[in-house]
């Protein structure tokens, strides 16, 4: 089998944005993503995760480099100013490149 290079976008943000982000992914025809519950600290203070509106999610999403970058920029513009948000890109190698 062969491995193909793709880009992974990881988004850490407030849990309340999940529905919005999923809508955005679907509008961009992103075909898959993975979500885990997270907490953390950043410029917007601590997110303990012990109280309703106060926890983070971490979303991982593999796509081609151009889509991932464009998506990160849109998210930054739309939510970066007022929401707790950190994003990063990394290189990954996948099997079945046609899935992403």
């Amino acid at each position, binding site marked *: 089998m062969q491995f193909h290079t793709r880009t992974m976008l990881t988004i850490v943000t407030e849990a309340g944005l999940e529905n919005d982000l999923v809508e955005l992914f679907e509008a961009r025809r992103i075909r898959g993503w993975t979500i885990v519950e997270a907490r953390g600290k950043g410029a917007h203070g601590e997110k303990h995760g012990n109280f309703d*509106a106060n926890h983070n999610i971490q979303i991982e999403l593999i796509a081609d480099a151009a889509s991932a970058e464009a998506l990160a920029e849109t998210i930054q*513009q*739309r939510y970066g100013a*007022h929401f707790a948000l950190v994003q990063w890109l990394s290189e990954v190698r996948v099997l079945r490149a046609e899935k992403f």
Partner: protein
Amino acid sequence: MQIDPVVLFFLLGLAAGWAKSDLKLPSALYDTLSVFLLLAIGIKGGLELAKQPVLQILPQALLVLLMGFLIPLLIYPLLRWRLPQVDAASIAAHYGSVSVVTYAVGVAYLTRQGVSFESQTTLFLVLLEMPALIVGVVLARLGAARAAGEGDGTAVAGHGWGKLLHEVLLGKSMVLLLGGLAIGALAGPDGIKPLDRLYLDLFKPVLTLFLLEMGLVVAGKLGILRKQGFFLVGIGVGLPLALSWVGIGFGVLMGLSPGGVTMLGVLAASASYIAAPAAMRMAVPQANPALSLGAALGITFPFNLLVGIPLYHQFATAVTGG
């Protein structure tokens, strides 16, 4: 006057959190308890509603709705004196809406004192949850739009109206309170009886666990008090004191009993820390959530529990001469 044990659990949580104990309740427990409390309150209200002719409550219900729209409009200009528009609007929404747990502690207090009150107060609780949120969002957006020179502020700065209404109307607390009301009304006392062992008998004991958790949560908010101390304390104590009189006034206007007037005072004085923060975060993301939640949860919630509720009862007794 002896302190209610449910309040002691709150103080235990507060002390443990303040001393940085490693005591932590699982968040699943918190979620479960709040589902339980909302359902139980709703069901209890539904059972009582079933007993009364709807038409008789209607005028009271309209007055309560009016109060819900009015309170944020009253507070907003006061807050604008010191705060940016978005924060003033957000805080107005928090204090216009209500706290279910404060309501429950109020019920426990009056029950302990042997004071009766009108059963429709549960309905009032449900009716008061939403109007202030709507007013708060409108105030914030009007401001934001003006500030942005009619720019694309709305689109960027938060959810559209349709989505927002959906979120508020179908938020967890509305759904469970209304659902409980409906179930209580439909099933009636006979249908609910087999459920009493949970929803009735365990209500107060479960409230103790919830308040333990709330103590821990409030202790976590003490940090912001150190920074914004004076101002927040001013808001967090001043607003409920003032608003309790609005509630008491409306209660007298409706001709409620002293217990009922007290409960309306408690509702008006209480500030939402579940529905409002969630709605405001999405509707007015520019507002600083630490400010509104710090005041509502960090100051007003404990103030009402420890000092406010008995005080409003005294106010109400004095006013009604009851």
